[in-house]
């Protein structure tokens, strides 16, 4: 081994260390734990078992002894996926016009607008979640105003519903949607829009046929960036869902805490990982196909 090779190897070492030990190591532990037997008081017993994986989707009813689907788990999976998709959609509906607005401002004021988007993002997640709670609780700002204006007589129950989860997660992850869309739009040549109008395209046609196809990679990236953390959301469902609308993150926490079933918790975590990977594959497919068409 000559000197250059050695120094190259040394320079690579930190990256390799991070990739093997810090990234794969913990994952490997989670993987191994998912095949062990739960200890009586938490922790694991080193006996091989596939019970945890089995229990992710199926369980034996304690009363009828019948084997059936693990309804509770499937319900939580479904809620997590549904709410994450809806959050991505809602963030898109709000984020796309916002990004368009910022991208069409004069160059100098754009940074100021971006800063305004980023400032809430620097605030602690818990604080932002509690701020939303203060707005939508029964004695909160929105209900107080609605009642004072005489629009409703009793407070509207918004907190502790799936609606509150959607609002909370959209608010929290919106910047992750705006940023990539804005990045695409900034590079977008707005003369194309003028050309479209010159050729008698309607505003809808310009948006759908010219702007949208060109910023689509940003939209897809934003959707993934919002969708993935939503799937594993823990704080928002806990604070705004009131413990009645739990999501995957809460279900996993339950296994490591009160229910003392670490292997099941590990298996559920890996299931979450698989869902995320499927979502990323779809993204790569969609983005890749796009590139091919333009190339």
């Amino acid at each position, binding site marked *: 081994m000559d000197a250059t090779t050695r120094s190259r190897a040394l320079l690579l070492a930190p990256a390799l260390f991070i990739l093997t030990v810090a990234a794969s190591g913990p994952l490997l532990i989670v993987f191994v734990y998912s095949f062990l037997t739960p200890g009586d*008081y938490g*922790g694991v017993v080193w006996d091989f078992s596939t019970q945890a994986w089995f229990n992710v989707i199926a369980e034996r009813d*304690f009363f009828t002894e019948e084997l059936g689907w693990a309804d*509770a*788990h499937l319900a*939580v999976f479904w809620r997590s996926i549904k709410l994450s998709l809806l959050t991505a959609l809602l963030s898109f509906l709000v984020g796309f016009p916002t990004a368009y607005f910022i991208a069409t401002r004069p160059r100098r004021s754009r940074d100021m607008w971006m800063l305004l988007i980023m400032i809430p993002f620097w605030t602690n997640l818990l604080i932002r979640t509690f701020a939303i709670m203060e707005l939508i609780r029964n*004695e909160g700002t929105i209900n107080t105003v609605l009642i004072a204006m005489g629009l409703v007589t009793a407070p509207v129950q918004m907190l502790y519903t799936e609606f509150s989860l959607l609002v909370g997660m959209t608010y929290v992850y919106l910047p992750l949607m705006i940023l990539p869309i804005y990045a695409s739009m900034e590079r977008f040549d707005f003369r194309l829009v003028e050309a479209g109008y010159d050729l008698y395209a309607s505003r809808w046609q310009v948006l759908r046929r010219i702007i949208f196809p060109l910023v689509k990679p940003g939209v897809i990236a934003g959707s993934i960036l919002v969708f993935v953390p939503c799937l594993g959301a823990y704080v928002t469902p806990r604070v705004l869902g009131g*413990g*009645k609308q739990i999501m995957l993150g809460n279900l996993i926490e339950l296994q490591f805490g*009160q229910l003392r079933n670490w292997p099941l918790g590990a298996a559920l975590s890996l299931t979450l990982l698989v869902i995320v990977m499927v979502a990323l594959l779809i993204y790569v497919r969609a983005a890749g196909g796009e590139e091919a068409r333009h190339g």
Partner: protein
Amino acid sequence: MIRTMTTASALALLAGAASAEGSLNIYNWGNYTSPEMIEKFEAEYDVDVTVTDYDSNDTALAKLKAGGHGFDIVVPSGNYVPIFIAEGLLMKSNPNEMENFSNMDPRWVDVEFDPGREYTVPWQWGTVGVSVNTAVYDGDINTAAVIFDPPEELKGKINVLPEMNDVMGMAIHYLGGEQCTGDREVLRQVRDKLVEAKPNWLSMGYSTIERLANEDIAASINWNGASMRARIDNDDIAFGYPQTGFSIWMDNAAIISDAQNVENAKLFLNFIMEPENAAMLSNFARYANGIQGSQEFMDETMAQAPEINTPEELADAGYISKNCPPEVQKIYSQIWTELTK
């Protein structure tokens, strides 16, 4: 002998380089340790005390099992004490031979989780009952029906603590069983009852004091001390003891098996069995302690509180919370997952 002593004092010098006479590291539930009492202990014995918080028995258990924590005292709940002992985490420090042991209420000496008190000393104890806003519902509140078969007035305004053992225990007793029962017929009824009651609940969360006082919720499964704090802010909040059975818990201070400051830890256990000091704990945390004679040092509000002093006619319905066997725990987990999904 002399050599051991010099080694020991050299070690003590090294360990206590930055501190006064010595130090003591307490690992306890958050917002649960009277700062006033700690100052008194520090002054009396010239010991530096550090308090570190945890939020659940499971957290404390996991941390101590992992090792390398540096704590001397931990305060597990009674139902967790046997687990901590079985895991070898507690030192058999024999508090029953300490000077102030005679102050301990005999009721709390021969407890199932530590018979004769060889490991632990009472910290605080309380009950799990129901808090109800009596302006919203003025019927009988000494029943778990306000949660499981709620009257029309309370529907949609109920909170349930997300504590599996407390909720399961209350529901099992409500339907005529005993805590930790493995009777499948009873448990099936419990599951059906819980699932049926859930749509009437607004939330399953830990924060009850503020929400009861603000009237965001009108009823909740609750700890007695928390209920009292809500009542201080809102006169309408009352605490009910379910006649079918309510659980009694006790948190207990114990020395950790690999504690560094054993002598100071022993001084501390003896210290909190002194009525005046136990009263300081109660005045801060708002729960009863297990020390006789501490009543006269307590605040007026504490000594009179209906939440702290269980009415005589209901006292028999109380049962001391146990840790259920793993096979039963598994069924409870299934029901709990079904309930919280």
